[in-house]
């Protein structure tokens, strides 16, 4: 399986990259970690005429805390999240997620920015970023804009990014004290996309869940928040009944399609179960101070 021919550019500045993207319009594609794009090109499902490799632009790979959020550079590799003490200590939902994406070899190249920009409902970061209420910084020819994650996923494989915009940073609000999160993914084997996966980020106020956001992976044509499930949870203590209600709500509001990973009915039920388990784990972590 050999990709079709294309012109390759490896600009060394964001401005040069943006100029190239503007010049070539829809014929050009950004190449980041390449681990969604190159497989698609090998099967000639994607046949871009021009590739703009953003891997040589300096200062797009970083993980740091600033102004009440975690800033993750668009070209940050999954492995960097996995290995980051900061992420492991304060952003367990993100750490959980990075660890179950693909396999270690893929994670050495795959980027967080690419994972979101690809807008694949099967990818794991979308649900996690939805649960965090993250925002995305996009740089275009006319400067940068910030896009709330809730507005980012437009359609299957379609994000709010323009074809001449580069996702440069992801901002994750730093969880407050008594915040906790967890990502639970069911996969058929290592390296597989999720049968279903659930991202939960919540805050506890005494015994009750004062706020919660829940994202779902691969059970909807577009990455989605399980808002009904959130509603079942917020303002209540996380009892078994509440968890069950939240799980049922999530199962009800998603729209999976049947495939080799299971029937729609099965995926809904797995979503119900994972929702309960992820909330339980997030609550435990919140109690523990994460």
């Amino acid at each position, binding site marked *: 399986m050999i990709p079709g021919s294309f012109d390759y550019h490896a600009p060394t500045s964001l401005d040069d990259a943006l100029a190239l993207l503007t010049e070539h319009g829809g014929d050009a594609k950004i190449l980041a970690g*390449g681990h969604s794009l190159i497989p698609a090109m090998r099967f000639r499902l994607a046949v871009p005429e021009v590739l703009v490799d953003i891997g040589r632009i300096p200062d797009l790979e970083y993980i740091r805390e600033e102004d009440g959020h975690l800033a993750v550079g668009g070209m940050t590799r999954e492995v960097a999240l996995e290995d980051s003490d900061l992420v492991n200590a304060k952003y367990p939902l993100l750490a959980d997620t990075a660890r179950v994406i693909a396999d270690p*070899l893929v994670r050495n190249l795959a980027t967080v920015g690419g994972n979101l920009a690809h807008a694949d409902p099967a990818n794991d970061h979308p649900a996690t970023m939805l649960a965090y209420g993250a925002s995305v910084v996009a740089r275009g020819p006319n400067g940068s804009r910030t896009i709330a994650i809730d507005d980012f996923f437009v359609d299957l494989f379609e994000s709010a990014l323009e074809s001449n915009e580069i996702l440069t940073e992801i901002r994750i609000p730093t969880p407050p004290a008594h915040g906790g999160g967890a990502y639970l993914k069911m996969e058929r084997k290592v*390296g597989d996309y999720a049968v279903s996966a659930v991202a939960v980020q919540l805050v506890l106020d005494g015994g009750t869940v004062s706020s919660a956001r829940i994202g779902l992976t691969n059970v909807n044509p577009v990455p989605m928040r399980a808002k009904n499930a959130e509603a079942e949870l917020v303002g209540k203590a996380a009892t078994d009944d509440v968890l069950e209600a939240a799980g049922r709500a999530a199962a009800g509001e998603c729209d999976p399609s049947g495939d080799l990973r299971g029937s729609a009915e099965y995926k809904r039920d797995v979503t119900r179960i994972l929702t309960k388990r992820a909330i339980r784990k997030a609550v435990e972590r919140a109690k523990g101070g994460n």
Partner: protein
Amino acid sequence: MSRHTIKLTVNGEAVEKEVESRLLLVHFVREVLDLTGTHIGCDTTSCGACTVLLDGRAVKSCTVFAAQADGRSVETIEALAADGTLHPLQEGFWEKHGLQCGYCTPGMILSAKHLLEKNPDPTEEEIRWGISGNLCRCTGYNKIVEAIRYAADKQRESTEEVSA
């Protein structure tokens, strides 16, 4: 079709070649440089037979364009015993019968090399997760795990000796 002159280091040696932009790194290594120890086992980035170290990190070279490796360093299985002495991992795979047909072996060894650099004393579980991007159809993995454990012990012994 665009072509590029790329300059990179392969197994410690400087290499300069003109390549087509779509040339995959695995084909560059195997067919342009004739380093056939790096193998191909799939077309979906699933098997890891093509694993090489790119700037020290284990990656699947079937999912990288040679042009992306411009200016970087690539290490393949052929580098490991270049001085005539087997690397502890090579020794481990031989001692512990960590291979059968040998097709996955170069990729496994390079994955394990990166793993041990990050985690010199991995548990069995960590080893299994660490090589989970590499498929082996022959061995059932038990002996690959033992081989990597052998190398970890051997490398730690020798660093202890140096520091002692």
